[in-house]
């Protein structure tokens, strides 16, 4: 949606005030998921499968029921009968099946029953009294093995219409796209490189485990408090899983201690509500870290084949990729997203990509920042790096030569509007980092990255108070400082100070449906709605001023927080400040508020370029990232500090994913490392200072030019780090994580 009144001259936008939730968070006053209690509250605990794949023959809870502190026990029978449908058409079924196992336990950690008791300890003890009889079945956790003919079938009939005949039933969705003639393009190349790459599943690693408090009566009316990226999707899903009306369940989002995509669905929330309905008391459920690792959504693991042809001058003549993603025992692995994003940075005449969504006996994958894109970039940008090395070409120049720009037909179909990839590459080339000399043992890596960004259903209200301050109600949980950004955008329109605007993440009873805080959509979509809602209020303010002055409303305009006559002919009046209008609004027409709701569709795609230096210890295979620079197009940075924070956060999580984070499964299909000691997320001292450059190529689809920045920053790191490590070690690393044993083995194989 192109907008004709785009603004480029700002008073508040682009400044860096403190975040409004900062003091609450540093003093402990902020209420997170587990920070709430209710009178008569019970504590819930979930019994989980110790098997990767097993038929549930019998659940005997009689001993637990006899426990004096136990008030309710639920199994699958206590949830609604949700119909099964193939692929993602039956997502409520898939979520229910994940929330509480039906006939089979499908992965280590899968919930099979839950207990509510008068204390958390009693609930945990009661779990041990529940006897589950399992018939253990063969399992598979590896994506390539899950596609082979003799792999155990996770669920018959889960494949949707897109899957070609003859594929294993574990392949549940298929994507193919592209344009041109790749075979002709390869024939035209001076050098063709084809290689295979593997990445392991990683977890978002948010510091706050899932937690909620649910209350549900037998009248079908309920309340839910939970840590979530989207309380409307929680409302809708819980209502469907419990068989109640959506509007009868009011959901409030707590403060959130990180989500990164992992809190865009429900896990324990329907369980707490089912327990509450049975016990007729509020029930609180808080996951342990081990439960978070075993039973929430990590990202997919991937196996990929990429083939790229290049001319001697660096022109890419053809590119193709096959991307196989494993997303646990449910449809949803984003093989389609991986395929669509893989070659999106480049202007290609001949391109073809195929994506597979494959099921295995692992937890249901959830979104993790630009879901699917980082893996594809790892494979593609590694091959481009190898081509540059073999042809003796500069990696930034080659990317500039092939870079997509306005008017390029994207690899996944549409034609790009104004985009900023070229600007990020030019900034990379000009950055002192790119010219800095490397020490012996160090290597440098470059990668580009792309993410779509998203609009989504959005509803925002703004209400002015008598004293001239404003309350802004948004429906998107604040996962990246968005309350500060919303206040800045509202301040820009209203012309009142940032500090005079209080932004609240409203509950589901306060606003219309708001899509989840995902797809880097919040600053874009809630921001757009905030601007429109504030403009709506300004229209009313102008009407009141016009009435006071006795002139037509179109003779009044809004400037610097005041109504002013629109020109000399409109009359000679002193500017009337906002607070003067709101002071007596009760008697001049009533409360003044603004509102806007829509599904904006001009999110504006986003590109970034990363430069990484890495040093590899040739004797131990240990990698240190010695320098890191993120360059990304933000369209317009509303609050530059939080934009930089998103850039740095993407790089930090990418460093973990590239070097040491991985889901480790034993032969028995059980997760071996479900604690932070052995799931090796980077610690602070593992990270270099991460330098950032904000490029601003305004998004034509947003009044202030905003493009989402939350996700693109995690797309280039895997590839950029792999390229740096490969160049440092002198051997191409094709498997993530590049843990020291893998690097040392590769060095030895290389002689």
């Amino acid at each position, binding site marked *: 949606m192109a907008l004709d009144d785009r603004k480029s001259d700002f008073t508040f936008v682009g400044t860096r005030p403190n975040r409004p939730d900062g003091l609450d968070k540093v003093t402990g006053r902020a209420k997170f998921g587990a920070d709430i209690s209710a009178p008569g509250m019970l504590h819930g605990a979930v019994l989980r499968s110790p098997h990767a794949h097993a038929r549930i023959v019998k659940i005997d809870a009689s001993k637990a029921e006899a426990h004096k502190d136990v008030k309710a026990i639920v199994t699958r029978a206590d949830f609604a009968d949700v119909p099964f449908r193939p692929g993602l058409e039956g997502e409520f079924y898939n979520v229910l099946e994940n929330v509480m196992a039906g006939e089979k336990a499908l992965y280590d950690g899968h919930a099979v029953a839950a207990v509510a008791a008068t204390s958390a300890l009693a609930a945990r003890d009661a779990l041990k009294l529940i006897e589950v009889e399992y018939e253990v079945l063969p399992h598979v956790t590896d994506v390539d093995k899950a596609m082979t003919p003799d792999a155990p079938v996770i669920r018959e009939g889960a494949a949707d219409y897109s899957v070609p005949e003859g594929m294993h039933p574990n392949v549940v969705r298929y994507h193919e796209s592209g344009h041109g003639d790749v075979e002709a393009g390869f024939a035209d190349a001076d050098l063709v490189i084809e290689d295979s790459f593997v990445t392991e599943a990683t977890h978002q690693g948010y510091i706050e485990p899932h937690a909620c408090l649910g209350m549900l009566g037998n009248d079908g009316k309920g309340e839910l408090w939970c840590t979530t990226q989207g309380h409307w999707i929680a409302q809708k899903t819980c209502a469907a899983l419990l068989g109640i009306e959506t509007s009868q369940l009011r959901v409030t989002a707590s403060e959130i201690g990180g989500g990164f995509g992992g809190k865009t669905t429900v896990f324990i929330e329907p369980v707490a509500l089912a327990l509450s309905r049975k016990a007729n008391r509020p029930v609180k459920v808080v996951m342990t870290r*081990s439960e978070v690792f075993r039973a929430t959504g990590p990202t997919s693991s991937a196996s990929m084949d990429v083939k790229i042809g290049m001319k001697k001058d660096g022109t890419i003549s053809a590119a193709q990729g096959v991307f196989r993603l494993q997303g646990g025992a449910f449809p949803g692995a984003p093989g389609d997203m991986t395929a669509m994003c893989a070659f999106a940075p480049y202007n290609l005449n001949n391109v073809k990509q195929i994506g597979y969504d494959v099921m295995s006996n692992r937890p249901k994958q959830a979104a993790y920042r630009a879901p699917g894109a980082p893996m594809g970039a790892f494979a593609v940008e590694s091959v481009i790096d190898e081509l540059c090395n073999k042809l003796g070409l500069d990696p930034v120049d080659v990317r500039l030569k092939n870079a997509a720009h306005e008017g390029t037909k994207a690899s996944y179909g549409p034609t790009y509007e104004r985009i900023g990839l070229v600007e990020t590459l030019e900034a990379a080339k000009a950055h002192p980092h790119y010219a800095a000399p490397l020490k012996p043992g160090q290597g440098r890596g470059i990668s580009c990255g792309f993410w779509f960004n998203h609009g989504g259903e959005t509803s925002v209200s703004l209400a002015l108070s008598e004293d001239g301050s404003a309350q802004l109600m948004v429906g998107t949980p604040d996962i990246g400082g968005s309350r500060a950004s919303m206040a800045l955008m509202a301040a820009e329109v209203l012309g009142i100070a940032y500090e005079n605007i209080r932004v609240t993440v409203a509950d589901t009873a306060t606003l219309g449906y708001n899509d989840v805080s995902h797809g880097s959509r919040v600053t874009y979509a809630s921001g757009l709605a905030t601007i429109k809602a504030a403009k709506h209020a300004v229209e009313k303010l102008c009407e009141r001023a016009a009435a006071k002055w006795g002139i037509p409303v179109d003779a009044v305009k809004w400037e610097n927080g005041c109504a002013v006559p629109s020109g000399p002919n409109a009359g000679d009046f002193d500017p009337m400040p906002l607070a003067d209008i709101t002071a007596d609004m009760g008697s001049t027409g009533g409360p003044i508020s603004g509102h806007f709701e829509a599904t904006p569709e001009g999110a504006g795609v986003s590109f970034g370029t990363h430069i990484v230096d890495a040093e590899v210890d040739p*004797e*131990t*295979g*240990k990698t240190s990232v010695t320098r890191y620079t993120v360059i990304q197009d933000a369209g317009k940075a509303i609050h530059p500090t939080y934009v930089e924070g998103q850039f740095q956060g993407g790089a930090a999580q990418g460093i973990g994913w590239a*070097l*040491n984070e991985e889901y*480790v499964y034993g032969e028995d299909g059980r997760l*071996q*490392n479900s604690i932070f*000691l*052995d799931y*090796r997320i*980077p*610690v602070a*001292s*593992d990270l270099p200072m991460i330098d950032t450059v904000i490029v601003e190529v305004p998004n034509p689809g947003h009044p202030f030019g905003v493009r989402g920045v939350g996700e693109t920053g995690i797309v280039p790191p895997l590839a950029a780090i792999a390229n740096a490590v490969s160049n440092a070690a002198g051997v191409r690393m094709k498997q993530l994580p590049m*843990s*020291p*044993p893998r690097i*040392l*083995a590769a060095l030895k194989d290389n002689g």
Partner: protein
Amino acid sequence: MDYHSPASFAEASALAANATGITRFLAGGTDVLVQLRSELVKPDTLIDIKKINGVHDITRNADGSWTLGVATTGAEMSEHPELGQDWPGVVEAMDLIGSTQVQGRATLTGNLCNGSPAADSVPAMVAAGVTVTVTGPDGTREVAVEDIPTGPGKTSLTKGEVVSAVNIPARGENAGDAYLRFIPRTEMDIAVVGVGVDLRLDGDTIIEARVSLGAVAPTVLLVEDCAKAILGSTLDDATLDALAAAASAACNPIDDKRGTIAFRTEVVGVLAKRAAKIAYARAKGENA
């Protein structure tokens, strides 16, 4: 669960001797409490020894040796003005364990009695020739650190026995120690490989040496062949290669989520060389 906080080691020993079921001694609690919370171990009897007089004391004896109370924390060791000058390897090994918060609780004795082959302080203590005093129903005995662990999570202590002091030898002249571990991160991790080296020089020549390896076998190892490889040498390149080969040969590691057999076998040699160089430099009075 019964909780006791005895006033003496004799009382602690008697409590343990008479207890039934699973007994755990509690000092810093950095292993016991974690195991309890994660339901790995649910003790029937918990005997808290950190209220016994003197358990936080660090004492330099007249002969230059050191006696450490069993509840002396990593932080107390690191902050001691002289202990680290005598035994930098032992102090640094202890300091590698966990976070700042853990350092305020964790102890050498706990690290030893937890029985982990990957315990950081243990190879350093073994190399340094540290002993512990064990109080039991039949009185006290002194046991070399290397004789305490018998396998993962297991020790040679018998029912009713409790470690009541840690004894570090006198440093003496022209000697130095060092401990290095390999972790894939920079801190807050568990050793994939650990190596402790202690040596003494006469001029440039090594005349005493002890080399201990961690996380490469069911228990921490004291490796005679490693010591032999460097004794009588000036730690030239050929000697270092021989040391690495001896360390690799002594390994009996496993493949697990933290590392592979091939990796551990290779890297133990690398770390042995690096630790030996540091110990050698320290013995010469250089900063290392």
